């Protein structure tokens, strides 16, 4: 039997806010195949990030099942490389030491961790900044360092929560292309949150469209573009049609 990297079945979650119960997720079904790049788009505040904290094992769903590599029973922390919206680099660690953070948690010996971090930085063009402190880096660079930190911790399964949301358009495009390179090279399965339709189309194999809160899956679409992708593919007629379809779907869900 072929086994998905991630399988969510009927995942629901409510939060209590004072006396009110706030339904956040409503019976979400979702799957990510091995090596697949899947995006989640949805209106802001719809509960995408909550979904991530559940997959990362920081919260448990009220109902439903989350299985990573077919395993729904054991603890999920450590089984995915989770990257929150902010880069959250440690200001007292150099770029290299920041990339090593996950290995420190795993108690990998210092020297081995350092070798691996250097190799990764070299492969993805950041080696010249290895000894810099994050404060001296630009926004795009910080996001890339945070991504490498995530990859070094777990290169098999990445949970990326709007990693490029705060970047300007050009930096963003450069980072997207860089991410595609990285993804293809390490062969990871990726689940990617964004609320940028074009970003989702450019990067993904499949896109899940979520509704407004409480989030449920409105539609799942395959992206009909070949790999390797380039920015110019967004001008492709199929991409434009898909973009329009998704935008008109989302605009109905977006709260004012």
């Amino acid at each position, binding site marked *: 039997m072929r086994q998905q990297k991630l399988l969510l079945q009927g995942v629901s979650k409510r939060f209590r806010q004072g006396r009110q119960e706030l339904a956040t997720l409503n019976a979400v079904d979702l799957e990510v195949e091995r090596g697949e790049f899947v995006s989640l788009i949805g209106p802001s505040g719809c509960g995408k990030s909550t979904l991530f*904290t559940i997959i*990362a*094992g*920081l919260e448990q769903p009220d109902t439903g099942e989350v299985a990573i590599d077919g395993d729904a029973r054991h*603890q999920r*922390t*450590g089984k*995915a490389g*989770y*990257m*929150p*919206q*902010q880069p*959250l680099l*440690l*200001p*007292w*660690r150099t770029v290299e030491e920041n990339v090593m*953070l*996950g290995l*420190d*948690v*795993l108690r990998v010996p210092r020297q081995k961790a350092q070798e691996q971090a250097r190799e990764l930085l070299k492969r993805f063009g950041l080696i010249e*900044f290895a000894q*810099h*402190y*994050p*404060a*001296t*880096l*630009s*926004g*795009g*660079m910080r996001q890339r360092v945070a991504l490498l930190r995530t990859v070094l*911790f777990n290169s098999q399964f990445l949970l990326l929560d709007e990693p490029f949301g705060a970047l300007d358009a050009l930096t963003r495009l450069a980072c997207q292309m860089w991410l595609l390179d990285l993804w293809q090279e390490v062969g990871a399965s990726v689940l990617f949150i964004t609320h940028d339709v074009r970003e989702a189309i450019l990067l993904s194999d499949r896109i899940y469209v979520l509704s407004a809160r409480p989030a449920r899956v409105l539609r799942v679409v395959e992206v009909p573009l070949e790999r390797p992708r380039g920015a110019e593919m967004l001008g492709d007629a199929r991409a434009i049609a898909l973009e329009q379809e998704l935008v008109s779907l989302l605009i109905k869900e977006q709260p004012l």
Partner: protein
Amino acid sequence: MKLRWLAYYGPALVLAAALLAIWELAVSANLTLAQSLPSPAAIAQALADNWDVIYDNAIPTLTETVLGLLISTALGLALAVLLDFSVWTRRAVYPLLIVSQTIPIVALAPLMLIWFGFTIAPKIIVVMLYCFFPIAVATADGLASAEPDLLKLLKSMGASRWQILWLVRLPGALPAFFSGLRIAATYSVTGAIAGEFVGAEKGLGIYMVTSTYSKALPVVFATIAVTALLSLALFVLVNLIERLALPWYHASRAALTMGQRPLR
């Protein structure tokens, strides 16, 4: 480099020199009685004349101060971790910490003399009573200010509570810890002097007392000046240690204040 140094410390030096000059003039113009307020020149003379005795008395004071400060640092850090450990330890420990600061420490010094005699112990305890509190509170604040998302990230990696403390929270609390340590360092010499005031065999505190009794006012002032210099030296030392320990902190602050461009 030299110019910047001058621009930074120059104003304070000029002001201090001006105040000393006014003081000197006021005394020599007989605006005050030379017996009750010696002139800066007389104080400097007294310092030079009694240097060997003052030096001899400064050594025990400095020893008490440094030992007290070191123990306070360890105690303050331990208390901060304890305060931070859980809501319950915080609720239990914090009120007691505050109460410890409402005790008039000076009034406690004679008691210590009864308990411990003319040893070094009561002085070190007085220094600690002054010093552990700012260190504990500042460090606890620093620990509490860790970014919640960062803690989430570490938890998602499966980090244990102690790993989170060691990898993220303690290093992040170091700038706050040094702020506390700076305050403690400036208090510490005063603490040692207060401890010696009620009784000691040697030390700047007891030397001040005996000089006052023998009406050697220039010597008293000279001793006060040495005390102030010791405090200042400790303050500078803490700053130096901080710079060596937290190169990243100064690098990032410089990047912010000097408007240094980020790379690319």
